[in-house]
């Protein structure tokens, strides 16, 4: 439970793939904005939020391919990648979630933006 505990209580597996690829044609990473902080949500209350990624490469060479959450928070759904109608270098994905009583606590969500 703390730094001195030796009592095991659970072990959860995480298995993933790593793909080694060649040098990309544009190595400017897309910017993710604006959610990068903890925000409070209430059990039973549905929330939606958008995560945006901005493409910094020449769109003829490279574009945002997808915005992907790492793993999934139970019950959270992810919309499709959508181009911003007002700024062609911006794309976003809408996430919708209704937290349940057994999810009370600190829940972390990481998101990765990929370019082609």
């Amino acid at each position, binding site marked *: *439970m703390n730094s001195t505990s030796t009592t095991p209580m659970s072990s959860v597996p995480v298995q*993933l*793939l*790593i793909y*080694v*690829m060649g040098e990309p044609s544009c190595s400017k990473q897309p910017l993710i904005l604006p959610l990068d902080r903890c925000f409070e949500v209430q059990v039973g209350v549905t929330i939606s939020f958008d995560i945006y990624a901005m493409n910094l490469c020449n769109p003829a060479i490279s574009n945002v391919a997808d915005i992907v959450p790492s793993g999934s928070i139970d019950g959270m759904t992810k919309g499709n990648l959508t181009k911003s109608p007002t700024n062609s270098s911006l794309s976003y994905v809408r996430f919708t979630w209704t937290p349940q009583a057994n999810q009370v*606590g600190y829940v972390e969500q*990481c998101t990765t933006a990929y370019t082609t």
Partner: protein
Amino acid sequence: MLITRLILFYFYCIANIHGKHFNGGTITWAPIDPYATGSSVSITITQTYYWNFPYIKCLTNVPVSSGFSSSTLICTAECSYDGDYSTKKISTSTDCISTSPALSMMTSQRSNNITLNKDAHFYLAYVGEAWVPLNYPVRRNQEWSIVTYIDLRVRSDEFINTPPAATVVSPQYAIVNRTIQITIPVSDVNAGDDVRCRWSTYTDGYRRRKRSGNEKQFPIRKKRSCAGYCSSNCFYGCSCSGCSSCSGAAICGATSTTVATTTAATTISTTTIETTGTLRSTSSYPVRQAINECADVCYPNSLPSGTTLNGCTISFTGTRANTWYAVAIQVCI
């Protein structure tokens, strides 16, 4: 925390991985009422898997709905304390929850509720094949084994533990000859719990001659602990000599946190045998069954030399472009 990562996607790699389908995953569980005091405890077991899309289709009952056979989560060790799991096995079928066609990736998940006898503690696994072709030289039809340890005994602070949650996207992308750090995002609803990560391991079981009638008389084995199972570093002052239960002493050795190139090369050349379609059996009359947390993707053979795990962060350098590697880690408290 938000991570930005750049990838360049090669379309020929889609063709490359066609035919093999498993991209990783996680199995976790949680008591529905951590303060339950009856003779049985209800828990939710959540399976999350990543698949090669669209080879595995975005439907319910993944991967059965794409023509693969169904299976169940199986108890692999401490099965005499499985709290009656064997009479109510859970299917490994999951339901598609999201796809990313651009990344050739599909995520499926399902939560099952199950009621077990109180004080159950056992290892539960999803075993199958095959991973996408891995490593260089390439290894095909690699088996997977993904194991969670369930322990419903009441903690010393008087409730049933909820294990940490750990999620990471699979696949992750690395650019050739550049070192990347991949941090496994972990969280724990039990405030103050100290979450740790270690490499998944294969722990040998042992056998005895069969004596009829008392096959269930398992001796109480020493419990595994994260403190005993060091990752690449010994955690929190856990001295390496104290890591007696590390399956390979090398995992704990301060000088062995990276894999010597020569060792890795030797090992790779001797382990390129392709597995057959039949999964390896466990021993016939085990006193304690082997605990196979990683099957064909155990560290260090499964990864390039120099790969390390520090806390819950993997440091990885790939020197061969267009190569896949599988990472198997246990997150525990």
